[in-house]
């Protein structure tokens, strides 16, 4: 099918960019400011939705922007892969907006304007990555995300927050300059172009060793995908406020990373080239290692957000694994995981934030009986956890199923075992939380801020309620969504099949 020309991708990206300006300008009027956030989020989602039908029909949407240098252009090009990511991110932005507003106001956080401004820019850049038509555009938006999430991670401005934020930026910026940019240069040098193209851009004359080096540099350079050993920025980033962790570190930022890996594998190298140089399976093993190792670490974390962070590291590698296996089903599974993991993980983070707002508790060992006091929150948490583990009837099952089939197609049996083992590990680190929350009697309620010395005083005792409705509703919705996805898999799989067919040159079924 011939590509369609449309300016809508540009609008999608600039909606939140414009919103960030408006937000910054209305720092004196919080309600107006929040209106901009919500309005932009809704508008953005509608615009993204309007792009879906042509894509499902098999079109590709082109939107050239401008040329920076001869050979380097900013260029949008929307395909099924990109629209899936963009739709997820922009839908979740709406929910996160409500959640953030409530969260920030409940905790009376400082610098809220900066927070919402940076948030909007980050979303803008995430869709920019989703829509980018060449590696240069991807790289630009990738860096914008890194830079504009720095203030979000450092939001508390405490020494600890700054330390975490510094680590975050050093890792992300460092790897992207030292490795990713190097890889891009090498790719441009060999191929003469950076445009994404199904089947890859490298001419057959490029040597396998060269390509292998470029591939390794890419994997190392895209640290946002948190493949070990380049994962440690993610736990460090957990010093950020919870909505940031929820949307950015469970969805936008890390998904940007795996999305770029997906793009690089499928549209820079191409399945055939990677088969030729045999780079897929080694990467699959690295990803498998990450899946297991991160799960084991997650088991040992008592801090709820830290456990979720390591769970993210582990789950992201499923996506990388799906792409690395280079088989039709695994690609479908990897793509589905991008979307399904987003919904599951954001539910978990939302719940963690709600718990913090309601109880000021951050450690898992303090969660005894919370489920009885906050049934909706913890109910949703349980749903999210089930989806993560991959139990039917929750969405997470779909992606794992396809990846598992993919391992068979790629005849990589050991990896199937890894998936099985990891499912058990997932259950091991999620189920105790759910158990604790519902089946243990509540702790003596402390006032707040984990100061156990004060809990003897009866005057500071107070009952724990659910968090504000604006926080609970989004997390219930996302939890419901994971169920919906299981029963209406075509929402995800239609796009996934296009992605897979594009990548394999229509060889699917």
């Amino acid at each position, binding site marked *: 099918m011939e590509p369609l020309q449309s300016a809508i991708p540009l609008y999608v990206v600039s909606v939140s960019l414009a919103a960030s300006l408006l937000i910054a300008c209305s720092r004196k009027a919080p309600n107006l400011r929040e209106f901009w956030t919500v309005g932009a989020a809704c508008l953005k989602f509608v615009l993204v939705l309007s792009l879906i039908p042509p894509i499902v029909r098999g079109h590709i949407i082109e939107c050239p922007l401008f040329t920076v*240098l001869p050979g380097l252009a900013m260029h949008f090009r929307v395909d099924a892969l990109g629209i899936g990511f963009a739709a997820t991110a922009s839908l979740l932005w709406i929910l996160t907006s409500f959640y953030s507003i409530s969260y920030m106001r409940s905790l009376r956080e400082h610098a809220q304007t900066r927070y919402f401004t940076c948030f909007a820019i980050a979303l803008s850049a995430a869709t920019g990555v989703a829509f980018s038509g060449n590696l240069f555009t991807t790289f630009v938006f990738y860096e914008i995300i890194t830079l504009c999430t720095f203030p979000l991670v450092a939001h508390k401005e405490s020494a600890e927050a700054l330390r975490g934020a510094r680590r975050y930026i050093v890792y992300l910026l460092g790897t992207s300059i030292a490795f990713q940019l190097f890889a891009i240069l090498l790719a441009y040098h060999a191929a003469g172009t950076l445009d994404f193209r199904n089947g890859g851009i490298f001419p057959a004359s490029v040597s396998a060793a060269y390509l292998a080096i470029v591939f390794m540099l890419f994997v190392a350079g895209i640290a946002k995908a948190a493949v070990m050993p380049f994962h440690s920025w993610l736990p460090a980033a957990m010093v950020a406020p919870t909505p940031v962790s929820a949307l950015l570190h469970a969805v936008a930022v890390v998904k940007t990373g795996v999305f770029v890996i997906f793009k690089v594998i499928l549209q820079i190298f191409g399945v055939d080239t990677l088969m030729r140089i045999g780079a897929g399976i080694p990467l699959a093993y690295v990803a498998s290692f990450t899946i297991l190792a991160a799960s084991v670490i997650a088991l040992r974390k008592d801090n709820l957000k830290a456990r979720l962070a390591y769970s993210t590291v582990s789950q992201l590698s499923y996506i990388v694994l799906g792409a690395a296996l280079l088989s039709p089903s695994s690609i479908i599974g990897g793509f589905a995981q991008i979307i399904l993991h987003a919904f599951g993980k954001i539910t978990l983070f939302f719940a963690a934030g709600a718990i913090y707002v309601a109880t000021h508790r951050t450690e898992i060992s303090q969660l005894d009986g919370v489920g009885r006091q906050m049934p909706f929150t913890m109910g949703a948490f349980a749903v999210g956890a089930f989806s993560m583990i991959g139990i039917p009837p929750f969405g997470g099952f779909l992606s794992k199923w396809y990846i598992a089939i993919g391992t068979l197609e790629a005849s990589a049996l050991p990896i199937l075992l890894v998936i099985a083992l990891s499912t058990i590990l997932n259950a091991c680190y999620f189920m105790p939380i759910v158990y604790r929350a519902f089946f243990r009697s509540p702790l003596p309620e402390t006032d707040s801020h984990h100061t156990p010395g004060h809990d003897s005083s009866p005057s500071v005792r107070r009952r724990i309620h659910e968090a504000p409705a604006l926080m609970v509703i989004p997390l219930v919705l996302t939890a419901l969504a994971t169920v919906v996805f299981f029963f209406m898999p075509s929402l995800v799989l239609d796009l996934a099949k296009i992605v897979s067919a594009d990548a394999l040159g229509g060889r699917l079924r």
Partner: protein
Amino acid sequence: MIKEHAPVLVILVPLLSAVLVPLVGMLRNRFCWHVAFAATHVSFLLSGLLLFRVQTNGKISYRLGGWEPPWGIEYVIDELNSFVLVTIAFIGFLATLYARKSVVAEIEPVRIPAFYSIFLLFLAGLLGIVITGDIFNLYVFLEISSLAGYALIAASRKREALLASYNYLILGTIAATFILIGIGYLYMVTGSLNMADLRERLPALYHSKVVLTAFAFFSVGISLKLALFPLHVWLPNAYTYAPSVVSAVMAATATKVGAYVLFRIMFTVFRVEFDLEVVSITSILLVLSSAAIILGSVLAIAQTNIKRMLAYSSVGQIGYIVLGASIVNETAMTGSLVHILNHALMKGTLFFIAGCVLYRTGIEDIAGLRGMGRRMPFSMAAFTVAGLSMAGVPLTVGFVSKWYLALGALRADLWYLVPVILVSSLLTAVYFGRIIESIYFGRAEDGHSSGSLSRERMHEAPTGMLVPALLLAVLCLVFGISASTTVGYAEAAARLLLGGR
């Protein structure tokens, strides 16, 4: 008439205005600035006209006094120097704009007429170096600008500036004399002083020991002038203690002219074949510039004074400019040449802002910038943009140059230079990142009680100083987002220098 004589007017306008300024200064002190402003403005417009004419009609040759080239002095304006000329004239123009407030704060009123006069001479000297096609004439203009440069540095109120200027004078004189020796040696065996004529006559003599010696002395002399590592020793002190506007102009123009002269000698007077096959100067420069790139960045990290940090970073950036020439292909050369402009934009912004901060708060240490984002939001935004650009963030000018340099290195199969470039980008990101973080997230704890901080909210630099800085910062973005124009000029110049290699 103007169009015809533009090549000589570019020089003569600031030169004669320099004579005019002290006379005007006798009447009214503050008119000096007006004269300087008008002169640099005219000079900038003329250089723009020349660039335009070169781009449309090709090389311009202007015969001074009407004598034909090898006998008389010739000004030659081609793709290379028209580009450098505009860069210098533009920075000079903006600096004059900036100087109005800055100079009043840093220099006693009695000295202002002399200051502007010298300032104009300095610019005229630089422009003259760039425009001339005669190698001895180049020496004369080099001395004009150098003498003016020494005095400008010493015009600072800081007493450390005196010794810095003196040391620069000694090294600068050694450099100039070395260049003079080179000229003498070439004259001895060719009988000519005209660059184009030398280019024709030299190939037959490439293996003459006289020519080799001449080339060695040119290289060392120019490297000293352009502060190529390890001959950069004069630069940090000079830039640190000079008046703000002088640091900015010198960092943005003087070293660039040095690089220009190096390229002229290496590729116009001598030919590429000579550099590659006879002396292999390029491999020496490759090592030195790589060392400069890395060590400049490392030393910059270690500094606590803002201007000194910027000075060391200049050492590294000069390395980039020379690196492109030592790779010897069109891509890298393009990167090098476009970096002449790009670095002028970035470093100009940074030094301008350092001056703004000094003007408003008297702060010179990096630690003092803490929390400055709230007090001087526009200045700090410009600083941030330029800092990011120095680190080579895409869509800023810094990225453009580095892209071409790295790509050029790959095309020449010198892949190991790419890590050098990337590592130095990382180091640059570290030292600028640190500052940018403390600007926006640091709290100015010491010395300021919270009450005085809130009173000091928004204490921006005066418009006259802010506007040039912001303009440069905006250009950092504009030429980073749409680099085709600047890269186009640089590419044409690179083709000219390397002759299609």
